[in-house]
């Protein structure tokens, strides 16, 4: 006769899980008590949202010339900033790699890269708009800085992961520093560099439609002013143009990725 043993539940909730839930609820209660997020405001908003969606459609493409010229400007900003940012990142990334450079060089360069990364592109855009005035130039400088922050960091990490045997082999032939880099380092990391660069071009394309909100050129400025003038059908047209731009960019970058595989 088999007796049924009343075993303990093998999946008990642990003490730390309980504390996690408790902490979550305490935080939510605290956050909602300090913020003015009310239910009636939310319901009011849903009402307003229905009306907004009514006014968003159909999209209004009558000002397509403005739209097209802004779109081209966004594209120009993204291309110039990507090329400039990636070229600068090549050198900055190499200088930040701890296995290629002494600490005297790599530490300050790493701090510089971290500085480029800390601030959101929009904040950098604000500073550059003050420095060089409204327009595409501020956008280009902003996205260049943002590209350095991202790509140079990844370049440096990629270079730090290389196999040093090949570098030593090239060095043993009596090659100079530049030849060592060109024939010992670059071939090992080239395909990853291409990957990072394509990713950054894609992300610059997205960001170039946004920096305009603070006056740094491109589609963002027109979008922001259309919002402020309650010109909602034009907003939809701009948003559709942005989504189309991003989709085309993604298709192109997939193509390039396949070529370089």
């Amino acid at each position, binding site marked *: 006769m088999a007796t049924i043993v009343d075993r303990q539940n093998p*999946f008990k909730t642990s003490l730390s899980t309980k504390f996690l839930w408790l902490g*979550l609820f305490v*935080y*939510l209660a605290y*956050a909602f008590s*300090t*913020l*003015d*997020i009310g239910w009636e*405001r*939310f319901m*009011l*908003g849903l009402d*307003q*949202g229905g009306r*907004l969606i009514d006014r968003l459609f159909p999209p209004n493409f009558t000002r397509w010339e403005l739209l097209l010229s802004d779109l*081209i*400007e966004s*594209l*120009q*900003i993204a*291309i*110039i900033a990507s*090329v400039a940012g990636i070229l600068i990142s090549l050198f900055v990334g190499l200088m930040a790699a701890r296995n290629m450079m002494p600490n005297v060089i790599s530490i300050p360069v790493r701090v510089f890269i971290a500085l480029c990364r*800390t*601030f*959101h592109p*929009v*904040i950098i855009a*604000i*500073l550059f708009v*003050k*420095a*060089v*005035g409204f*327009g*595409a*130039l501020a956008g*280009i400088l902003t996205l260049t800085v943002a590209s350095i922050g991202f790509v140079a960091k990844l370049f440096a990490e990629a270079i730090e992961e290389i196999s040093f045997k090949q570098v030593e082999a090239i060095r043993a032939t009596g090659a100079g520093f530049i030849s060592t880099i060109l024939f010992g380092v670059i071939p090992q990391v080239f395909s990853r560099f291409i990957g990072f660069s394509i990713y950054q071009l894609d992300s610059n394309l*997205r*960001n170039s*439609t*946004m920096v305009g*909100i*603070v006056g740094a050129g491109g589609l*963002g400025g027109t*979008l*922001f002013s259309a*919002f402020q003038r309650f010109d*909602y059908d034009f907003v939809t047209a701009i*948003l559709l143009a*942005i*989504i189309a731009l*991003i*989709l085309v960019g993604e298709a192109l970058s997939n193509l*390039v990725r396949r*070529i*370089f595989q």
Partner: protein
Amino acid sequence: MKADALMTPVSNPAESPKWQRFTLGQRSARYMVYLIIVMSFFASLRTVEIIPEFLLDAPEQLADMFRRMWPMDFAAYPTTIHGAMLDTLHIATLGTLLSLILAMPLALMNANNIVKSSWVNWIAKFFLVASRSVNSLIWALLFVAIFGPGVLAGVLAVALRSVGFVGKLFSEALEEVNMGSVEAIRATGASFASVLIKAYWPQAKPAFFSILLFRWDINVRESAVLGLVGAGGIGVVLNDAMNLFQWPKVAMVLTTIFVVVLLIEFIVVQVRKRLM
């Protein structure tokens, strides 16, 4: 046929083709890409509207800006900046939590080892891609138009932007789950919910917390600028200070953001070390 192949004479080394890593087609495709990049770069450079005088003037203007920023307006911190910064942190945290609620069903629907129907997978994928391709500032503009300026618009903007990111990464983590334990739990006759909780979740848990922390870190940075379009937080203070040309206050706000972002990054790194 085999004998034929064996009998063909070995070609002499001078005639044998030079070894090349890539075929002619591959190489020409690559050179085409290089050419297009260079051409589009110079075409953009020639047509973009840049006023060179402004660029020459830039160092002077930047120096002027930093001179006006110094000394920083430390007195503004306790009165306005501290509260706004807390709001920003709340926006980031609440937005991340809300995005989890929205992302979970989409991630489950998107993982093709949980829901077998490719139709459902595609629907989930569409929502995830749509969420990711609209920038958080644009989401914020939309929600400010709907709910009015304030924290609520910021929370929703952060949440909807994060859904795509969290959902995509979490569904990838779910797809990498070892199916053996899933089958074992299924074999006991467990319901769908039990399989999810006892088979999928324990394996995807580390990835889940790592994604959560990663996105929270990004959201803190992003929510700092949402205020520029009126979605609450420190960005509102920054925008007001800039419109009034209060550069010392701007400097104080930027320093606060800088310190908070570094602090958050430190916390995230520490927590992740404990979790791994």
